């Protein structure tokens, strides 16, 4: 029984979250995070599940209200986990601080 449970746990971890959860997580990211800052701040980082969890807790302490924290965490881990390749940041036009 223990071996069976272990196999199930490992399989669930390697499959990761299902597509519906990831889509919910992405919507939650826009709803919960965008009011205060743009998403580049999140998407430029590559963190472990534990580290993403700590970031969500920090933001909750600073006033973020989550309606689906679990889905958001799954989305962040699946998309911006520390095993994911880093994408280079954008470059703004010369002489302009940002494109805004």
């Amino acid at each position, binding site marked *: 029984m223990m071996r069976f449970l272990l196999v199930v746990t490992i399989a669930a971890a390697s499959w990761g979250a299902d597509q519906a959860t990831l889509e919910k997580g992405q919507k939650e990211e826009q709803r919960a995070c965008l009011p205060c*800052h743009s998403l*580049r701040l999140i998407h*430029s*980082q590559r963190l472990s599940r534990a580290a993403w969890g700590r970031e969500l807790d920090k933001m909750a302490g*600073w006033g973020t209200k989550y309606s689906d924290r679990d889905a958001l965490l799954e989305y962040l881990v699946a998309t911006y986990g520390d095993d994911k390749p880093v994408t280079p940041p954008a*470059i703004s036009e010369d002489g302009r*601080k*940002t494109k*805004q």
Partner: protein
Amino acid sequence: MIVHNDRPEDLETPMKYFDTWVTPVDAFFVRQHIPRPAPIDPAAHRVQISGMVSKAAQLSLADLEKLPQHTVSATLECTGNGRAFYSPKVPGIQWGRGAVGNAEWTGPRLGDVLKMAGLDDGAKHVEIDGADSGLAQTPDFLRSMPMEKAMHPATLLALKMNGESPQIHGFPVRLIVPGWDGTSWVKWVTRLTAKVEMSSGFFMNPGYRYPKYARPPGAPAIPAELEVIEGMPVKSTLTAPEDGAKTAIGPLMIRGFAWAGENAIERVDVSTDGGARWQAAELSTQKLPFAWRLFTLKWTPAAPGYYTVMSRATDTAGRVQPIVPAWNPSGYLWNGIDRVGITVEKA
């Protein structure tokens, strides 16, 4: 600029803008924790002096301009410059090598302002607040520094940066704390409060603290063993050739800049063979505390192929850049020996 974030703005300077001793205002890096304040009317702006002073005051820019004006050349570096190089990765803006710049800062001494207000001898710290404020319950960006640094003649309430007053860089009034991390250089200053204790609040604790005793990579911080970051370490950055460049065989100029917090740069050594052998680079003449020095080395590769070029700075106190900077949970103070890789092609 390299855009790490656009709201609020977190912008890094690309290497191509680093060939001058003074970094142009337009190319200077920007780091913001919370949104920029609404546009400030310089005529209406006031700096409140409060706490342990006998003459509390609301100073206008005209009041600050009446005090003796001083210019200090100083390198400003984000505390997290180079965070992207730490492994395992840590949260925060993933700065590369360009969250740093050198400028000429002009304004009255903070010490003169405090003395004019009748500073009490018992005050040991100065708390500094700016016009920015956090969204939702994000903490206000509030800092304090010990009185000894506040009274240092190079610590200014700057009204100018390279002769300009750009609001994105914290003007009309920005605190200049030469040699200390960027977090200490509070922007849009609105209040100075003399007090006995250092300030609390997120940006003093646990923010911007560094382990007193180095921790294994990936280990959590021990809160009781975190210390406020003050002076910055010795460091160098190669600006040319650019990492990944391809160049035809022939003479090359290796260039870069080096700085050392409150010290001056004594020497910079460069290696073109991955650190096996080193030779001294030529240094620019300004040998100042707080400000960087430019370095150059002429080099003619003997053969085509891939080369790892490295730079290692030494300061006037004998500090030398390490091969491996100490990992820390917030990714501060990266100062590893710099390196770029280039391919030299047959003529």
